[in-house]
Structure formats: C-alpha cells, structure tokens
C-alpha cells in the first residue's frame, strides 16, 4: 500500500507559531484598550437573515422541535451583552458560512469582532487602522466615502445615477458587460462595480477604508441622520483582500425589526427560505442598546497579509479540504 500524505496539516509549524503569536498580540491590544474578551455561543437558535449569507444548521436531540445554527458572526449575541452590560467587548472565535471555498474563503474561519461603547464610525475606523498598523506595519492609508470611490474610479455618482446610467457606465468593461446587460437591480450593479471593477484597482500596498455605504446596503448600520441616503457602514481592504466590515450600530428596535422583515422579503423574492427573527435581539434593543460601533475582521486573512501567504489554506492548521 502506498503511504498517503493526506493526513498532514495544510500549514507549516513555523506558520502555526506565527499564528499563535498574532492571536496573542491581538489579545494584548484589547487588554491595553480595556476591551473585555467574551465567547458567545457558536451554536444558536437563530440564524442570519441577510440575503447573501447562509448558516450551517443542525438538530439537537434535546430540542427536537427546533433547528440550531452555527453562527456566521457573533453579532446578535454580542449586542445582547452590550445592551445588558454597556461594556466594550471583543470576541476572537470560529464562525461558519455555507459558501464558496477558495483562496480567501474557508467555510469555517476565525473572526475578530469587537464593539466599542460610545464610539462613532470614524473613531472605530481609527482604532481598526491602529490595529492594522500594529500587525502589518506602517502602510499608506486611503480613507474614502463610497461616493468618492465611485467618482474616482468610475466617474459616476452611485447615490444619484439612474439604473440606466449605471448600466451604461459599467458596460464599458468587457468582462462584466454581458451581466450588466441582463441585470437591473441597483444594489447588484453597485456590488458588481465594487467587487469586480473597483476593488482590484485599490493600491495593494495601502490600507483602503471605504465608508458611508448606500442606505440600501446598510445591513445593521445606523443611517446618517444628516444624509439618509447613506449609512454609517465601512469596509477595509488591504493587499487585494476584503478584511473588515463595520458599523456605527443601529440601536432602534423598530428599525431593527423592519430590517429583519426586509431581509425576509428579499429572501422570498429570491426563492430562499425566510429566517425566524431573533426576537431576543429585538428585545435587547427595546431595552436599550448604548450608542456604539462594531466591526468584524477576518483573522485568517489578516494573518495571510501579515505573513505574505496567498492561499488561506496555508494559514490554517487544516483547511476544509483536509478537515
């Protein structure tokens, strides 16, 4: 019989040592900033309602009537802690997403998520940059609004352009023109422009922060009260990778319920099963979520950038293909 190497880890020992060192460095960073480490349930009764995210689900023999879901992010549980205790918290743990496997994607990955009480979006962006500089070293920083990014790279205003104008603008790019011609959903066109045209043009040596996303892509971010076309949501990119997504958090329980309902309407339109609304999160917001900002950062991707790895498999002890 031939000996197989299939059992071997996908990361080297040296990489694992560096990975452990980075976990430690991040914990020190938050200890210094007086942010409390928490570990909320990975297995929960409620899943994510976002149209483009899918949970992995399972049954427990003690609760035969219900499905349980592996969390795509610890957001709901962490917000319940924020509402109860009003303390800044972070979590460094595994999350699961039932989607693509690739150079930057593993269905199980480590997410660093943290929430800062009384922080605005801008203050949180500054703290994210502080952590990134600590891990990656000094790098040029680009801090642009979603509108500025579209104006700079596509010469179009994403908040005002009509769908026809968007289609016309994007049809200049041969690798997306077929899709543009048959797509008339505004957010899909904007996301196509962002992911396929604009992001690859960001300076790979720089850290690029894009903030003030359109309200239709607010997710769980608060809308900007002086310009409700945009939300306090930001994304961070470095080295050609999307690293982090953050919000100045929505604290209004009614709006939260409305966004869950909107997610479920979109799910129905796209023939996806509706998701039960996490009523405990809505209750927590009703009891009062303090003004806060939070961000989720892909730990494995940050580690890839820090170590110059070009495939997430090299950053994990065992990737899904040998898990």
């Amino acid at each position, binding site marked *: 019989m031939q000996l197989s190497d299939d059992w071997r880890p996908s990361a080297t020992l040296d990489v694992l040592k560096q990975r452990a060192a980075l976990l430690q460095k991040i914990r020190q960073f938050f200890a210094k900033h007086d942010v409390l480490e928490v570990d909320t349930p990975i297995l929960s009764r409620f899943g994510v309602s976002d149209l483009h995210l899918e949970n992995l689900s399972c049954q427990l023999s003690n609760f035969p009537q219900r499905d349980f879901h592996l969390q795509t992010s610890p957001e709901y549980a962490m917000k319940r802690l924020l509402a109860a205790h009003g303390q800044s918290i972070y979590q460094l743990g595994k999350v699961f997403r039932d989607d693509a496997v690739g150079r930057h994607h593993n269905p199980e990955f480590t997410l660093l998520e943290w929430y800062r009480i009384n922080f605005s979006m801008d203050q949180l962006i500054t703290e994210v940059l502080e952590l990134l500089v600590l891990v990656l070293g000094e790098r040029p920083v680009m801090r642009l609004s979603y509108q500025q990014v579209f104006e700079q790279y596509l010469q179009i205003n994403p908040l005002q352009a009509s769908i026809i104008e968007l289609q016309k603008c994007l049809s200049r790019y*041969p690798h997306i023109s077929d*899709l543009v011609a048959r797509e008339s959903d505004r957010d*899909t066109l904007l996301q196509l422009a962002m992911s396929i045209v604009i992001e690859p043009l960001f300076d790979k040596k720089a850290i690029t922060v894009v903030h003030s996303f359109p309200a239709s892509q607010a997710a769980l971010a608060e809308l900007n009260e002086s310009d409700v076309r945009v939300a306090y949501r930001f994304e961070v990119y470095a080295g050609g990778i999307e690293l982090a997504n953050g919000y100045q958090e929505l604290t209004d329980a009614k709006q939260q319920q409305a966004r869950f309902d909107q997610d479920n309407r979109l799910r129905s339109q796209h023939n996806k099963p509706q998701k039960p609304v996490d009523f405990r999160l809505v209750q927590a917001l009703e009891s009062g979520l303090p003004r806060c900002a939070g961000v989720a950062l892909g730990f494995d991707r940050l580690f890839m950038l820090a170590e110059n790895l070009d495939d997430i498999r090299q950053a994990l002890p065992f990737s899904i293909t040998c898990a």
Partner: protein
Amino acid sequence: MANYSTNEFKAGLKIMQDGEPCNIVDNEVVKPGKGQAFNRVKIRKLISGKVVEKTFKSGDSVEGADVIDVELSYLYNDGEFWHFMNNETFEQLAADAKAVGDMTKWLVEQDTCTLTLWNGNPIAVTPPNFVELEITETDPGLKGDTAGTGGKPATLSTGAVVRVPLFVQTGEVVKVDTRSGEYVSRVQK
C-alpha cells in the same frame, strides 16, 4: 443539454457563451462579506480559440455545451474533408477545414487523433503529441556535422516545415513534437 449552476463551475466544464461552445479555463468566486457573490470566469471559445473573461452572479445557471473528445484514427483527405474512423466500431467522421485548421500538417494516416465534437460535429482536431514524417526536401548538409548548430529548414511530406540538424537528409523520417512544431530525433526506418 443540461444547465450548470455557477456552483458547478470548474476548469474543464463546457458551457455555451455567445452562441459558441466554450471551455472553462479558470473560475474564481468573489464573495464579499456582505452582498452578492460573483464568479469571475476565464473561458476559451472552442471554435474561435479566443480566451475571454466573463462574470456571473453566483447561483445563476448557464447552458451547458454538448462537447466531447473522441479518439479516432486518421484515414485520408478527399480534398474537402478529412476522414477519421473509430477503430472499434468502424464508424467514420469527416472534419472540415475549419475544424482541422493548421493541424492538417501533422495528420499522418493511421495515427490516433483527438476530435472535439460539439453536438456530434467535429470542431477541433488535435494530433498526437509526436508524429513521424518523411523529409521531402532539405538542403544537403555538411557531412560530420552534429546537432545543435542551428540547423536548417526541412519540408515534410505533409507540407510542414521544421528546423532539423544539418546532418539530416531528404528521404529520412523524423520525429516531431506537434505542440511546439520542433524536431525531436531521426527515426530508423
């Protein structure tokens, strides 16, 4: 023909695009943390040979192309068509000049070639990696010269022209790599 979802995309899958059968060369999923995922795909059009990039919404489906490769042995050219035969069933297939293209210069009777069929019709012919052909014309070289001095052009029986070492003479059979069009060695008759 069945449709394929983008989840099934991988290198080698045959799909229809722009009315032409295509081979997926490379497939990359771009999935933002929030929002629509896309598949960025590099495809080779099997008739024009062009390589182009396309983008699909993940979850969309695309018409498959009924494309298969078959191994057939080359029989003869009747002036218009190149005829091939399945050595087991003795079924014959004729490929036109468009399908054969400039591979005609590597077609040797009895050699096994790969024919790419779309809806049963040949759209491409791939000769074996190595063929043996007789030299019909080349300048007489200097006696005693060995390989590696640049060589000289030689016309082969199919019309192909390859560079051969100076010592190789008209009437000799040479082995040629059809992928690079380069001389490999002399063949003892």
